[in-house]
């Protein structure tokens, strides 16, 4: 039995990363390295206003005096920040008509299964695709515009809605927030901008696909979502990258502002190239994601499935400032082979009667290391805060690690904070039970993992849930330790 399980594990872990192709599109890149001139060049290429350049330079100067964080349960090799290309864009100008777009590029997105072709998007998803550094195509713009919803690339937003960008940029993640946030603030190239006006329920789910294509580049995108009072939006994000031997850096920022009675749901399926079986190559995914529930009864929901990246360093957080605001965090993080993940969330309770819920499910296999790191803070003036955290780890193999590092900081006596965590493996009795009923070991494991991750997958929008489910199967099915 053990041998059979090993074989299944072998087969499964041998499954290749299927998004690992390279698209042959001419790219416009600038030279390697980082200095103020590079930042000025990026800013000039994007024809940015003066204030944005100032913002970048401030961030860069701050970054220079910051140190790379080393506190995570990660073994991050030295990164030579001068050996990275900070700007790469498909050379072709963004075409007005989809038909005019470079066929190679179209093929890329077809391969990724992204419903850019509007025919296909009857499913009701508006897509913004970001390749390397610039936004390639945003769909359904007109339909959205009718409702007053702004959904466009970040550069477009800077050009067309400078006041909004200026008002909100850096308000949730300040330019000097942390090492990678400062780096991003200095060199960010593009990303998505979403603005939902007061009282509007966004008629469809908004989606962005990020792809790193060019070699030796880093991707630094920036997403800004603003939901005005009573607004609602569900936003999805997906990521892929080609297979390369060297490591590539991805340092993104996501900022979300949720006003009174508004609700934002942010879902991520992160499937950057995780490196090969020996742990060579792969993306370093160092991301700062943070939301601010600014008004009363604001709601922010994070749902993420993390299966890719060689190293993940990511803590989507929520600042619960408005009274009665609510935030939920659902995460499945899967690591296999030599992947490392240190991920979790932060819930900062400031407003009265704020509630948060954290459900984190880690699955580790191979030689990987998977850590949950989360913080729940209740400030002194916050009354009746409520938090419940559950962090479970599943170990599939005796060479992998599962770690849990919660931090609870409570300063108010009316707070109720609970944290629970368990670590276990799939029990032989569970497998036996399934086998007995004619379910093969492989299916049984799939079933058990499905059940284990179900709490989180169920929180994902439909289209993503299906994709997430598939990803889980690819990464893990059958791998009983």
């Amino acid at each position, binding site marked *: 039995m053990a041998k059979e399980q090993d074989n299944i594990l072998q087969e499964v872990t041998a499954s290749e990363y299927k998004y690992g192709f390279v698209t042959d599109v001419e790219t416009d890149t600038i030279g390697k390295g980082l200095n103020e001139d590079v930042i000025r060049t990026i800013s000039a290429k994007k024809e940015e206003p003066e204030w944005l350049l100032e913002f970048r330079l401030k961030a860069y100067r701050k970054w220079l005096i910051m140190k790379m964080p080393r506190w995570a349960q990660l073994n991050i090799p030295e990164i030579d920040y001068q050996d990275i290309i900070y700007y790469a864009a498909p050379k072709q100008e963004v075409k007005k008509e989809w038909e005019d777009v470079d066929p190679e590029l179209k093929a890329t997105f077809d391969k990724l299964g992204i419903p850019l072709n509007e025919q296909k998007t009857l499913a009701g998803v508006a897509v913004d695709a970001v390749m390397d550094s610039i936004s390639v195509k945003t769909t359904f713009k007109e339909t959205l515009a009718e409702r007053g919803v702004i959904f466009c690339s970040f550069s477009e937003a800077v050009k067309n809605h400078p006041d909004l960008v200026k008002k909100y940029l850096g308000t949730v993640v300040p330019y000097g927030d942390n090492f990678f946030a400062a780096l991003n603030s200095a060199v960010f190239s593009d990303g998505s901008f979403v603005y939902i006006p007061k009282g509007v329920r966004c008629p469809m789910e908004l989606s962005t696909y990020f792809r790193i294509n060019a070699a030796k580049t880093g991707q630094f995108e920036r997403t800004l979502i603003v939901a005005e009072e009573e607004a609602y939006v569900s936003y999805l994000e997906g990521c892929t990258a080609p297979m390369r031997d060297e490591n590539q850096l991805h340092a993104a920022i996501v900022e979300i502002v949720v006003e009174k009675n508004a609700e934002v749901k942010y879902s991520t399926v992160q499937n950057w190239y995780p490196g090969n079986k020996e742990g060579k190559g792969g993306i370093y995914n160092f991301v700062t994601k943070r939301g601010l529930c600014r008004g009363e009864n604001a709601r922010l929901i994070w749902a993420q499935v993390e299966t890719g990246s060689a190293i993940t360093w990511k803590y989507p957080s929520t600042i619960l400032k408005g009274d009665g605001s609510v935030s939920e965090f659902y995460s499945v993080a899967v690591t296999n082979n030599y992947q490392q993940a240190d991920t979790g969330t932060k819930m900062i309770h400031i407003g009265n009667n704020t509630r948060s819920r954290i459900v984190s499910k880690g699955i580790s296999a191979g030689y990987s290391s998977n850590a949950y790191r989360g913080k729940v803070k209740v400030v002194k003036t916050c009354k009746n805060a409520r938090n419940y955290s559950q962090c479970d780890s599943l*170990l599939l193999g005796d060479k992998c*690690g599962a770690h849990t590092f919660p931090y*609870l*900081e409570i300063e108010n*006596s009316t707070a109720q904070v609970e*944290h629970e965590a368990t670590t276990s493996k799939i029990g032989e009795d569970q497998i036996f039970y399934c086998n007995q009923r004619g379910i093969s070991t492989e299916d049984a494991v799939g079933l058990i993992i499905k059940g284990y991750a179900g709490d989180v997958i169920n929180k994902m929008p439909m289209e993503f849930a299906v994709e997430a489910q598939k990803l889980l199967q690819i990464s893990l099915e059958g791998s009983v330790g």
Partner: protein
Amino acid sequence: MTGIDKINNDFVSLFREGRSWMEAGCGPEVNAFREDAFSKFLALGGIPFKTEDYLYMDLLPVFGKDYKVVLKYIPQDVNVKEVFRCAVPELATDLLLTVNGWYFKENEKADVPEGVVICSFQEASLKYPELFAAHYNQYAPAAVKDGLVSLNTAFAQDGVFVYIPEGVNLKRPLQIVNLLRAKADLMAYQRNMIILEKGAEATLLVCDHTLSENYFLMNNVTEIYVGEGAHLDYYQVQNQHLGASQINSLFVSEQRNAVFESNMVTLYGGMIRNNQYVALNEEGGECHLYGIYILDKSQKVDNFSYIDHIAPHCTSNEHFKGVLDDSSLANFSGCIRVEPDAQKTEAYQANNNLLLTDSARVNAKPQLIIDADDVKCSHGATVGQIDEEAMFYLRSRGISLAEARMMMMFGFAHDIVQRVKLEPLRVKIDDLIDKRLRGEFSKCHNCLMQCKK
């Protein structure tokens, strides 16, 4: 030069100047480690300042005071035995005193089975070099990144030494009372070694008290070796005053089928840091760590534990509970480490806190670091208030609000206290906690000085 740099520099000069004094009474096995330990202390940046392990405890105010250090044994001007009386009635123990970290020279010889050694650390280091070579500074391992432990290794001169040979069962509990008494503010070091050979059994009760009103800073390190099949019950009752700071580190090394059980009862103290490092080296090891802290005023308690599951088939269980009043601060940091191949590990950890005011603070950091797959590990932490439904239940039966609250808090604390196996001690602790909760007393219960701090 201010703050941390000044403090660290003071230690450098103190170490250079006091070296000959420190080495005078100790055996070569002890002195051999001083230089390295002090270098390590400096290499770690001196006093822990904003390090991960001391994240929520600011040591600067504690170390910033102008303390005196005692580098040789000074007889007390009063008979300490007269001044101090153990307040636990009907507890038959063999009593040992230490004063300011020094083994009290007039301790009576305990009536113990043959082969058992109970003496001062200094005396033992000269008399039993082979035991020191085998055990001294072996369990406060190099991997531990705590400068304060290195500091103790560099400076420690005396303390208590207990050796229990193979198969011996110490029937009466051994009570070690650590007293602090001085005319000036005092910084002291104490180093204890407790060795239980194969199959030995013992109960150790450690009490920390202050007998004068000065500021104290005690840095106490205890190394404990629990041999194959040996069993040690360890109780520590900390009842000092607001000016007393204590850094108390236990290093426990457990062999095959050994059992170690500790219970930390923190009733009063200015700043108390309890470090417990347990290494489960061989199969079948078991450890239970319990703790209760009842805090008010500006007390600060930091319970830190690191349980290292090195071998398969070991069990650990950890439960700390606390009640926080006024502007007190409680930190809990517990780490369960399961090394690769430590399969069939069972490890549980829980921390519960009751917050009574908005100026009290709790920081909890329950951690799991697991590198083996066939394990059952869980941890939980809660911060909350008294359960309203339970209160309603009591109120609907005619119990007054105040009394119902008291009952709930007492029950909350009793969860831990009931683990104490020595009945007289359990009754006394219950009684002390009851009094503390009722606000009838908030001081060192047997401190003769009427300090008003």
